[in-house]
């Protein structure tokens, strides 16, 4: 007997078209589920920490009806604290995901499938962006119980929230790809990201900095995202809000391109 071999078709690769939507969506879901799985650490913990900061700063420095930039000090603090928690979590999500995958070796699981460098960039960054925005939302809602803040320009709030978490997600990816062990990424978090998110006007107006530091403050992208975000809440900004928009757009595109180039070239990912 002869097998009708002519009729047996070998399995064909799934045709994915221009963009591998299903692959992108799968990677994104994996990234989101990764942090939702431990939501006490990734969503609740930032809320607790941020509320503690709100409490100690209001108690220590907000006494006697103190106001800053025309609003009570606690209202001045809210946007800065929300932004701080958003960016720290966005960075933590992408950087930890990549470093853990690299150290454990399961990074091959995302490098083998038919995912282009752009799809990888979007999938990883999407996870960080989602976590950052979710944290911001939860922190903002929690703070509403203690501080009666308002949002004057919702479009600015939304724009800077999305831009800031995108920027830090991409930075986290770049850091995660660069880092060879946990120590490296911990050093970046401890010595770069945390100081920048604390010292860029979260708790004070940069006018308070000594003269010599002004130029440095205006070269710091973290300053623009906090300043612009706060402008959306209280209608007061230290720098021109439109300059901030431009700075953020430029930086996010630059970082996206860098992350894409790193993934496309296989830098520290492929032998």
């Amino acid at each position, binding site marked *: 007997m002869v097998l009708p071999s002519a009729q047996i078709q070998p399995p064909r690769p799934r045709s994915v078209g221009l963009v591998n939507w299903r692959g992108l969506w799968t990677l994104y879901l994996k990234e989101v589920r990764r942090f939702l799985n431990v939501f006490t650490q990734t969503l609740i913990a930032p809320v607790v920490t941020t509320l503690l900061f709100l409490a100690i700063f209001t108690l220590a420095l907000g006494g006697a009806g103190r106001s800053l930039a025309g609003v009570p000090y606690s209202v001045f603090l809210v946007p800065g604290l929300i932004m701080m928690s958003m960016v720290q979590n966005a960075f933590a999500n992408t950087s930890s995901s990549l470093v853990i995958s690299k150290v454990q070796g399961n990074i091959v699981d995302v490098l083998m499938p038919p995912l282009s460098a752009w799809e990888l960039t979007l999938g990883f960054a999407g996870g960080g962006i989602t976590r950052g925005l979710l944290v911001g939302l939860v922190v903002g809602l929690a703070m509403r119980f203690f501080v009666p803040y308002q949002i004057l320009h919702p479009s600015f709030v939304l724009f800077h929230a999305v831009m800031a978490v995108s920027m830090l997600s991409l930075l986290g990816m770049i850091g995660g790809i660069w880092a060879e062990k946990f120590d490296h990424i911990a050093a970046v978090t401890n010595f770069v990201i945390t100081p920048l998110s604390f*010292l860029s006007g979260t708790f004070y107006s940069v006018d308070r900095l000594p003269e010599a530091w002004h130029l440095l403050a205006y070269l710091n992208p973290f300053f623009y995202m906090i300043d612009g975000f706060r402008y959306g809440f209280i209608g007061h900004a230290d720098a021109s809000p439109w300059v901030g928009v431009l700075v953020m757009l430029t930086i996010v595109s630059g970082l996206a391109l860098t992350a894409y180039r790193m993934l496309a070239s296989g830098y520290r990912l492929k032998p």
Partner: protein
Amino acid sequence: MHPLTPRRYGAVNLRGCWTLYRRGMARFWRFSWHSLGGPLISSAMFLAIFALAAPQAGPSVDGDAVGGHAVGGLPVMLFLAPGVVVFSLAISAFKGTAVPVLDDKLQGTVGDFLMAPLSPGELLLGYVLPAVSQAVISAVLVAVMTLAFVDYAPVNLALAGGLALCIAFFFALLGALVGLWADKWEHYGAAETFLLMPLSFLSGSFFSVTNLSAGWRDLMAFNPVFLAVNGFRFSLTGYAEAAVWPAPLVLSVLFLALGGLLWRLLARGYKLRP
């Protein structure tokens, strides 16, 4: 031929204790870049932020003294500096036991200590003493750093040292308890978020209890960490917001209670032996 006889030791296995201590310190020095640099940076950051965020010096509308914002009865920097020292002391001591205990449990290396001829008390000392040592090293570094911001007017350095040790032991024991209780890193994370952070942030390290409402202030009098912070600040600046004498007393009682509890748990093999 004589068979090998077991090494004899007296009432306390000092060499075993010392070995465990050296192991803990070796682990600490391996990551000293982070474990010392991290608290140093964050303490300097806290001081810088408060210096910048405090209401401006000079005559002001809301009645601040000329020459800077005052917290309680002290200039803001002088009020905060002892606070950040205690803060880094507490965090280092807590992590100094919680992380190694949990790490040893998860990696299975506890077996090596449970097999060795070490009594529960010796085991406890072997974990707690390295944590206390590294917390003290870290706090001394932070204290030296704060000298760049403030001039202390020490009242009683012995009291400062004693209270610092009490705080370090208290948090190291607390950390050991958490490390023993936790089954995975998520548990440790939860303890850090819901126990360590509130306890260290809300104990008057960074704000004056005179800013609290009367009810909260009364509640704070029962917070042992607040008593310790308050006593420590008093010994360095002469300013106190509550009576100082209960602090050593309360901390000693807590220290003994926690130590006793841990000794019992180790003796029973809680979460260590099948």
